[in-house]
């Protein structure tokens, strides 16, 4: 009798432990902006993540599950974001950190991720120097140097005098620096540069200064979302287009999810960027169709949704490669040689040396396509562009 009980208990324990071994749960900590004035950007990430989970959420090795632990950072709020990340690592024991609309937040988390050895994938935050501060940071979004530097080179050949207007935080400074370098290399002259507070919603005073300076071209950057519309509105209110000023910038200024709301003033705005909802690659057409089916026919996915979608793809690929038994070092090794030929934005890869994104950059113009405004890709200005800043400033 006793032996039978022991055998029974032993088999139960065995079954239980086997059950634990089979049902692997990989926890992913997702930090994004769900409240506050910049919730629109967080919403873009959220839509990308949810769409991915709906379409591909079950494409995992047998017995492996993924659990998303979602937290709100309430905007560019680095110390708060750092505490949330700390809690995700310590309390929830997440195996990935991801999300992050904001560069300041990502910059505060990156060293923490290295200390805790948790792979940290940026869905959007573009601050160019972050990979240098953390060996466990990788990026699937973009850097401003990737778009603004080639844009400067292109614009320098067509226009003489440029004015720059960027948001006053790290990515803004980077966009400004990259554009000015490219523009000057092509023989252009910078008339003046102005930095707008990150929280600004009214651009008219700054636009007036541009109007008075009479440049040929205005280079703008803002952290997309509603601010892109606000800056475009400032441009329209002062009739800068009629005053002969061409508006250009990285794709953030004509981000696809906001573009319809900007009105016809956006027509003719030239941008360089890695993603347009209007691109006719098959992978993009499928992505846009799925997005519209999920969120409504009038909504276009913006580049942030694509960043979130591709980041989830990368995380899922890493989980599949290790069959759910996550080892942080192996994950980082996998990420360093990661390639995805079929992203909605075209082929992408992670640069093994810098863990930053490599992707095509397209020159686009806002045109009307079928009665709707669209960022129409005109030409590829760079194939699989590595971040130029890191080429110029290699890690010592």
């Amino acid at each position, binding site marked *: 009798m006793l032996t039978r009980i022991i055998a029974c208990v032993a088999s139960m324990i065995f079954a239980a432990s086997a059950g634990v071994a089979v049902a692997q749960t990989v926890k992913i900590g997702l930090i994004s902006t769900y409240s506050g004035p910049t919730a629109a950007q967080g919403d873009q990430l959220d839509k990308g993540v949810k769409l991915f989970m709906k379409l591909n959420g079950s494409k995992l090795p047998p017995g492996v599950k993924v659990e998303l632990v979602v937290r709100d950072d309430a905007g560019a709020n*680095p110390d708060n974001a750092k505490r949330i990340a700390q809690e995700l690592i310590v309390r929830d024991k997440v195996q990935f950190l991801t999300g992050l609309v904001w560069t300041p937040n990502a910059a*505060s988390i990156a060293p923490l991720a290295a200390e805790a050895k948790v792979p940290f994938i940026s869905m959007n935050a573009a601050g160019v120097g972050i990979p240098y501060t953390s060996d466990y940071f990788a990026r699937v979004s973009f850097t401003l140097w990737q778009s603004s530097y080639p844009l400067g080179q292109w614009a320098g050949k067509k226009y003489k005098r440029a004015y720059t207007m960027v948001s006053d935080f790290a990515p803004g400074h980077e966009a400004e620096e990259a554009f000015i370098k490219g523009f000057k290399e092509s023989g252009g002259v910078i008339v003046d540069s102005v930095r707008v507070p990150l929280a600004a919603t009214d651009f008219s005073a700054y636009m007036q200064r541009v109007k008075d300076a009479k440049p040929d071209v205005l280079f703008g950057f803002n952290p997309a979302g509603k601010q892109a519309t606000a800056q475009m509105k400032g441009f329209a209110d002062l009739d800068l287009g009629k005053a002969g000023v061409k508006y250009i910038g990285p794709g953030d200024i004509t981000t696809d999810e906001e573009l319809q709301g900007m009105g016809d003033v956006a027509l003719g705005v030239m941008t360089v960027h890695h993603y347009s909802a209007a691109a006719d690659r098959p992978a993009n057409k499928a992505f846009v169709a799925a997005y519209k089916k999920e969120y409504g026919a009038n909504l276009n996915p913006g580049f942030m949704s694509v960043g979130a979608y591709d980041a989830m793809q990368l995380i899922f690929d890493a989980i599949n490669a290790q069959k759910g038994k996550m080892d942080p070092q192996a994950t980082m090794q996998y990420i360093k040689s990661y390639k995805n030929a079929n992203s909605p934005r075209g082929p992408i890869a992670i640069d093994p040396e810098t863990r930053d994104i490599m992707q095509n950059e397209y020159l686009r113009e806002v045109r009307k396509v079928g009665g709707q405004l669209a960022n129409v890709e005109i030409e590829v200005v760079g194939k699989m562009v590595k971040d130029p800043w890191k080429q110029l400033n290699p890690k010592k």
Partner: protein
Amino acid sequence: MTGPAHTGSYLSDPRVRPMEWLPWVLALVCYFAAPTYLPLGSYILIMILFALSLDLILGYAGIITLGHAAYFGFGAYVAAILAVRVTADPLIGIAVAGISAGLLGWLTGLVILRMRGLTLLMLTLAITSICYEIANKATALTGGADGLGGFNMKPILGLFKFDLFNKTGYLYCLLFLFVAWWLVRRIIYSPFGASLTGIRENVARMHALGSPVYQRLVAVYTISAALAGVAGGLLTHTTEFVGLKVLSFDLSGDLLVMLILGGVGRIYGAFVGPVVYLLAQDSLAKQFPEYWYFGIGLMLVLVVMFARGGILGIVDRLLLRIRRGNT
């Protein structure tokens, strides 16, 4: 003696009652029982210290302010700039943060405490806005909207290293909170504290008594600002990062809400409010990352409508009812 006994005053018994040890016992129990909650725990302790500093001027001296984040943020930035440029020793950092915030409190207090009521409220708001804009614009010093980080605090006294689980940070914050609590308690039970309550209740009468009202207010404002600066310095040291949010109007507002939630003018309101508010925020934000603000808002509306005097006010009324029931 009217009013509840534990609000403290010159006339009541200054000895520490057994109940008053409860928060400290609880804090130590949390340290051992919930080691994964210590990052949140440290933040709560910092906000309690910050709320305590506000309670001193708002609850006892009756100075209505919406700009207390100025001193908190100033202390936080001073601690961070010091760590980046001079020394990353935490104790020196806290001392400098506290003293410089106190100095700022003294200088601004000299100007704004000549006013009362709405004018004073507007001036406190203005001071926060000025500090915020300076921090936003002086990017070379403060990092602007990107925040200031990239420094590592040295171990406390060369012995206790700040760790990922925030164990050191938690005890570090608890220690400073204890010192601050002792100080605030001493002030409240002193003649100076009694004169503050007098100013709050009837300024004209205090003037008639020949009490130096303005000097007293400046003194308490300076002490309170220094305590807020210490809280700010603690935040910088435990997160090793400081962002513009520490100087924002939102933070002043949140703090006021926490204090009202706990109960104004009774020391322990500053303990209860932040705990309830931040734990509610933490669990709501986890369950409803998109709509958690709604839950916070609802809680506030309910407290303001049904629980005047905050959570401790409810406790008082309950205790009173039980006592009446017994006799």
